[in-house]
């Protein structure tokens, strides 16, 4: 329960800026910080249990058949990450409050930041891989919003797009990989999966699954060859970089590798891929960082390199390497966030963050210099800082590992990378703070608001370096235990004696000074091609192809419709010519005289429509005639419900078209008379095709046994009605009907919304003939009575909510036609929008009601009711649902027609 609350708090915090809009930036930040802080405190209440080795869990089963459940799980690894996410979250909120300017939209920035925090927290405390995937995707979206926060800048838009495209694509691969993992392990429960190492590694699907999962992890954690999105993301505001690229976003991939370590690691494939890509990333990132002029770009590539380091450690697969990886995750978060924040401070104070433009700030900004020195030395791995400890553990592991058939290759490469990292670390420090640069307007240290967060982080790095076992020993131990799946007791010490690792560390630091000395010469090397440009070119190429394909289409409606008809006819013909079919065997119904005469009327009326288009009233009348004939046809062909519905709908459709006609311009006779041969041919082809298809279908029996036997058999016992059509609508398939009344309601609301703000058309003065007015008023109660009758009998005889709703609407529309909109509106205060809502809510209520007693949505009840003076009659709860249908239909029809009536600007 508590875990769910912890997971929910950041999302609650995301709403704070909206709720506290009036409170200004400080108020909003406080609101967010309160949510994060509370989550952090609650997390800490769980920490003692987790540090003692327990796994805290909370779960709610939702769809057990699909393995979908809300399941939170807090073990050592999750505790470490959750602590980093929330703790760093607090510091970033503090920093952001003073970093953002007045012009920035602080409310949406804080909202996105909290959303991201919630998503990230969700990943690490998910106990179910499906739930983890949802949060994983959410981090991609939230980081897109954060990276593109300054969306007026083209590079921010580009960075956000690239990171979304890449992490989104990796997310897709991860979905496939994790689903395969769940399939192999037979569960989506993380605890179950983690215990199935042998089953998973023996599966033939192991390799493809591993590749997909690694694709997800490597894209997120910016491993080679996907490293380029991270520097592009530096277009984000600095608080975002400090948060996303130190403790959170890029660590999600690392977290995934660590989380799945017990089941995936240890195979030759794992060692080769994870160690190999980690090593390549570590070297490439460090090398590229040496050449960057922009401080944030330098830090970005150093992050890439450090992430490669952690990946490399996880790839080695030994317990000691896992301890080192976990420890370095913490240390990197501390010094990298401090450095990003310092870079932001320098940028703010000096209005420049390029290495070429900066220098000599040590005297001007002494506190920033101190903070930066501590953080930089930790990054460089200089004792006694925390970074030294984890880097030395790495070097020690590397010296012990046989890689590529040799005992010293890995140690040499890791030492090289370490030397490079000392080089770029010193370069940062020297270029910004030392040197002789003279400032015209000397930058100064900012206030405590900006400095507090990086100072705390840098001091934490120093404290952990001096007293590692006291401050981090237990946490690293339980986290490493969670990674390896076995209890681990980490032993971290500042001084190991003069062993190989120490000499290699000394060599690395010495090498770093050599790089620094060589730096002016290094800068003359040709710059490495930026992979992001290649990616952008590839994307542009695909966009161009897509553009060419779509430009082949016409932007005119008629040719596209024609193409559609032609394609449908062509495919039908192809299916007919290539498929197998038997001759029809159904005994045909002989045509009688009356239907034949009516059929002739229909054909004549329909064919006449295109010829009389210039006479709009006549063409609408012919349409109405055709609709009436269709209704008659339904009645003749044993579909009384359809006939009733068709007639009612026909009336309102004709009213609608007549109303619209008063506004639309006439079509000229010349336009109507002009023959259109291609269109005519296409129309004839479509008609012939439909005739052939309909005849072929009618001449044969059903290919499969119709399922309606069930509905007919169950209509009376199951739904309590004898009208099988109505019981299907309001009972068996009421969920369809529920969706359809909502669609109808939305259509009416769309019409009402569209009619708002349109100019009124000059309308003719509408006459209200006295006879029409009187007769329609006289008829009104009787029409309503018919509607009630239709509604009540609907469950057993033709009728029902749809028809009744239409009849009520017609009764009211008749008053509008006869006496005018205003006259009717004055006497009938009917809010049609409310009517639609009432209908949908009634139907929803009927759907939810049975759920209280544990039955499915929209279950119905029926029974016999006896009232004094009446014969016992059957009543079904489905009738209440039908009432909802009726209300919604009435409301929708009235709202649609009254919106159009309003446009006519009726004269008074």
């Amino acid at each position, binding site marked *: 329960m508590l875990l769910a609350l912890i997971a929910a708090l950041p999302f609650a915090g995301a709403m704070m800026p909206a709720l506290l809009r009036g409170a200004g930036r400080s108020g909003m930040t406080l609101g967010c910080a309160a949510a994060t802080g509370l989550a952090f405190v609650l997390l800490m209440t769980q920490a003692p249990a987790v540090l003692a080795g327990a796994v805290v869990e909370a779960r709610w089963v939702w769809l057990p058949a699909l393995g979908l459940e809300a399941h939170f799980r807090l073990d050592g690894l999750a505790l470490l990450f959750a602590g980093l996410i929330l703790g760093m979250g607090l510091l970033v909120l503090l920093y952001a409050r003073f970093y953002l300017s007045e012009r920035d939209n602080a409310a949406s920035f804080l909202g996105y930041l909290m959303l991201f925090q919630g998503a990230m927290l969700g990943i690490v405390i998910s106990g179910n891989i499906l739930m983890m995937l949802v949060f994983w995707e959410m981090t991609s979206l939230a980081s897109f919003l954060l990276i593109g926060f300054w969306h007026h800048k083209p590079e921010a838009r580009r960075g956000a797009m690239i990171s979304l495209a890449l992490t989104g694509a990796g997310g897709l691969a991860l979905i496939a990989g994790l689903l395969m993992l769940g399939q192999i392990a037979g569960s989506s429960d993380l605890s179950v999966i983690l215990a199935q190492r042998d089953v998973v590694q023996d599966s033939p699907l192991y390799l493809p699954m591993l590749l997909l999962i690694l694709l997800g992890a490597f894209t997120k954690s910016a491993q080679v060859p996907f490293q380029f999105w991270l520097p592009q993301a530096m277009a984000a505001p600095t608080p975002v970089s400090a948060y996303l690229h130190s403790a959170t976003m890029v660590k999600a991939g690392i977290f995934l590798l660590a989380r799945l370590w017990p089941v995936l690691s240890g195979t030759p494939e794992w060692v080769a891929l994870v160690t190999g890509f980690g090593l390549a990333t570590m070297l490439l990132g460090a090398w590229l960082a040496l050449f960057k002029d922009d401080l944030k770009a330098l830090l970005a590539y150093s992050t890439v390199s450090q992430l490669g380091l952690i990946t490399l450690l996880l790839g080695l697969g030994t317990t000691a390497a896992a301890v080192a990886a976990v420890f370095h995750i913490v240390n990197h978060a501390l010094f990298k966030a401090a450095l990003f924040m310092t870079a932001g401070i320098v940028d703010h104070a000096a209005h420049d963050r390029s290495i070429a433009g900066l220098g000599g700030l040590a005297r001007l900004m002494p506190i920033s210099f101190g903070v930066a020195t501590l953080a930089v030395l930790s990054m460089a791995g200089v004792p006694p800082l925390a970074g030294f400890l984890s880097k030395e553990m790495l070097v020690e592991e590397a010296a012990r590992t046989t890689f590529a058939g040799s005992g010293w290759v890995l140690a040499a490469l890791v030492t090289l990378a370490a030397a490079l990292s000392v080089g770029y670390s010193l370069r940062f420090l020297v270029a910004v703070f030392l040197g002789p640069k003279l400032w015209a307007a000397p930058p100064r240290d900012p206030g405590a608001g900006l400095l507090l967060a990086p100072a705390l982080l840098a001091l934490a790095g120093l404290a952990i370096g001096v007293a590692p076992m006291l401050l981090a020993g237990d946490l690293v131990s339980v986290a490493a235990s969670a990674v390896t799946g076995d209890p681990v007791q980490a032993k971290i010490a500042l001084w190991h004696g003069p062993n190989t690792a120490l000499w290699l560390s000394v060599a690395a630091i010495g090498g770093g000074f050599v790089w620094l000395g060589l730096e002016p010469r290094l800068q003359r090397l040709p710059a490495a091609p930026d992979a992001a440009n290649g990616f952008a070119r590839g994307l542009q190429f695909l966009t161009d192809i897509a553009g060419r394909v779509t430009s082949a289409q016409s932007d005119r409606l008629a040719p596209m419709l024609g193409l559609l008809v032609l394609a449908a006819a062509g495919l039908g013909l192809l299916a007919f010519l290539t498929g197998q079919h038997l001759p029809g065997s159904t005994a045909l119904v002989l045509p009688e005289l009356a239907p034949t005469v009516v*059929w002739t009327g*229909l054909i004549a009326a329909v064919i006449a*429509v295109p010829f009389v288009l210039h006479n709009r009233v006549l063409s609408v009348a012919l349409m109405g005639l055709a609709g009436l004939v269709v209704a008659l046809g339904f009645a003749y062909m*044993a579909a009384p*419900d359809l006939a009733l519905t068709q007639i009612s709908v026909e009336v309102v459709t004709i009213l*609608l078209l007549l109303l619209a006609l008063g506004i639309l311009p006439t079509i000229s006779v010349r336009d109507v008379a002009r023959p259109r041969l291609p269109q005519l041919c296409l129309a004839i082809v479509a*008609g012939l095709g439909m*005739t052939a298809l309909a005849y072929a279908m009618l001449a044969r029996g059903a290919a499969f046994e119709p399922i309606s036997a069930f509905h007919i058999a169950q209509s009376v016992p199951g739904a309590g009605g004898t*009208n099988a059509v109505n019981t299907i609508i309001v009972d068996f398939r009421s969920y369809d009907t529920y969706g359809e009344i909502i669609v109808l309601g939305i259509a009416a609301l769309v019409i009402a919304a569209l009619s708002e703000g349109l100019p009124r058309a000059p309308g003719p003065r509408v006459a209200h003939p006295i006879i029409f007015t009187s007769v329609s008023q006289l008829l009104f109660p009787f029409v309503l009575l018919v509607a009630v009758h239709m509604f009540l009998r609907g469950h057993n005889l033709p009728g029902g909510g749809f028809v009744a709703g239409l009849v009520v609407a017609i009764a009211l529309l008749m008053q509008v036609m006869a006496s005018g909109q205003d006259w009717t509106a004055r006497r009938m205060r009917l809010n049609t929008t409310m009517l639609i809502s009432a209908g949908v809510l009634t139907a929803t209520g009927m759907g939810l009601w049975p759920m209280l007693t544990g039955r499915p949505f929209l279950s119905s009840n029926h029974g016999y009711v006896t009232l004094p003076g009446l014969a016992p009659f059957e009543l079904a709860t489905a009738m209440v649902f039908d009432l909802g249908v009726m209300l919604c239909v009435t409301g929708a029809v009235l709202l649609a027609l009254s919106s159009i009536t309003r446009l006519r600007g009726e004269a008074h």
Partner: protein
Amino acid sequence: MEMLLASAIGVLTSVGVYLALMRTSFALILGLSLISYAVNLFLFAAGRLAPGFPPIIGGLTPMTDPLPQALVLTAIVISFGMTAVLVMLALGSYLLGGHDGVDEG
């Protein structure tokens, strides 16, 4: 009887397609209405013909298939909704753009 229904569906489709291919919104609306008649009849025809045997329990058997009827019933009401939205779009484009065509310009 089957031929009468099939040919009615065909003629409704033909005229509907012809009207829909004209470039005025009024013709398009009429055309789509005719096509929706045709489609509704076609769906109904999927239940095959049994004149005189309505799907009311307790009447004559074997009764006609109620399922296509239930589907068509809601389709008829929905097609009203579609027509109404189209009419509104046509009115909007005429009142704002000043012409009755379905394409720009």
